[in-house]
């Protein structure tokens, strides 16, 4: 490739390579800088570490702690704990829960910081994991006592 056309091709190749590298670096820097605002939620550990102002609206994510779920007498107000394995936050929520909501399930709740009591959620979303299994398979696994919820495995 010593022809003039060949040289021009090489020049264009380098131009594409360098401009793409610069672009990727720039976008990478921007995304790193915006890390906190891109993430949808904070986990209980981050919640304790970072100082959020009282009343500030945030999303909190984690697993619904086992045996933490209870319902008030009105049948509409729910209490449960959200845990990431290390830290646990109590949540109170009034409204309807998604079908997938259960203890051990990943959830994302939106609400405001309350430094003197439980986190007051106004919206509860269930997080699905990446595993799909037929009901019969899960039943037989449970019968043999070897079934474990995938998210429980991760948090241990």
């Amino acid at each position, binding site marked *: 490739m010593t022809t003039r056309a060949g040289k021009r*091709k090489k020049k*264009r*190749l380098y131009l*594409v390579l360098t401009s*793409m590298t610069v*672009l*990727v670096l720039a*976008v990478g820097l921007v*995304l790193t800088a915006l*890390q906190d605002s*891109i*993430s*949808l*939620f*904070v*986990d209980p550990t981050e919640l304790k570490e970072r100082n959020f102002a009282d009343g500030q609206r945030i999303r909190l*994510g984690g697993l619904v702690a086992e045996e933490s779920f209870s319902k008030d007498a009105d049948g509409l107000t729910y209490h449960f704990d959200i845990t990431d394995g290390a830290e646990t936050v109590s949540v109170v929520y009034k409204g309807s*829960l*998604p*079908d*997938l909501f259960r203890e051990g399930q990943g959830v*994302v709740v939106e609400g405001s910081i309350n430094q003197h009591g439980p986190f007051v959620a106004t*919206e*509860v*979303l*269930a*997080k*699905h*994991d*990446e*595993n*799909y*299994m*037929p*009901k*019969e*398979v*899960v*039943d037989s696994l449970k019968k043999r006592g070897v079934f474990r919820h*995938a998210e429980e495995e991760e948090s241990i």
Partner: protein
Amino acid sequence: MHKFANPARFLRISKMITPWCFFLTIVTMVAGLYWGLFIAPEDYQMGASYRIIFVHVPAAHLSEICYGFMAVASVVAIIWKHPLADQSARAAAPVGAVFTALALFTGSLWGKPTWGTYWIWDARLTSELVLLFLYFGYMAVWEAVEDRTKAARIAAIVALVGAVNLPIIKFSVDWWNTLHQPASLLRAGGAGLHPDMLWPLLTCILAFYLFFVTVVLWRIQSLIIRRQIRGLQIRLAEEERANG
């Protein structure tokens, strides 16, 4: 390089392939969708609503593959300046836009019963929406710019710049906290699906790939033929002027 990219040769070979691709698309699409909708067992947590993944996952996957294809074609177009590369990228854009729209629509209908919301501005959903606008932007360049050489060059740059979004979509679920779950198929430790669900999903993905190849080949053929038509029209006009 140029030998294979000869438009006339490409037209001849692709015309031999497309009927077969079309036939296989129909077979795999019907089989895959029927399998996913009626035969595959229900999920232990989500019941029947998980059946949406048999259209959602292939659409979302191809929405990225299609843009990747356009980006590669655009690199070839910029460096080797071959019209076939521009035509390939241009032909694929509407197909990719449809896949992206389908991924967003079906994902939203999956989100309501599973998450409890149709839409959330998490990194995965937002970057996929950005992809849809990139497709629209790319297509708009071809419509808006009169001069074809100029349109090709601007479109190729748009395709390349937009390609930065592809790894962001793919890894958004690993880099940031999102509501969207991580990958089930391409992950360390094998697929997170039971084989009874995995096989219909793979069939649907194959069907979408075949659909993509068939339709994009037809659209490239169309663009090549239109170029030939324009050439002939010019020659006809010249002939008529010479005769008249």
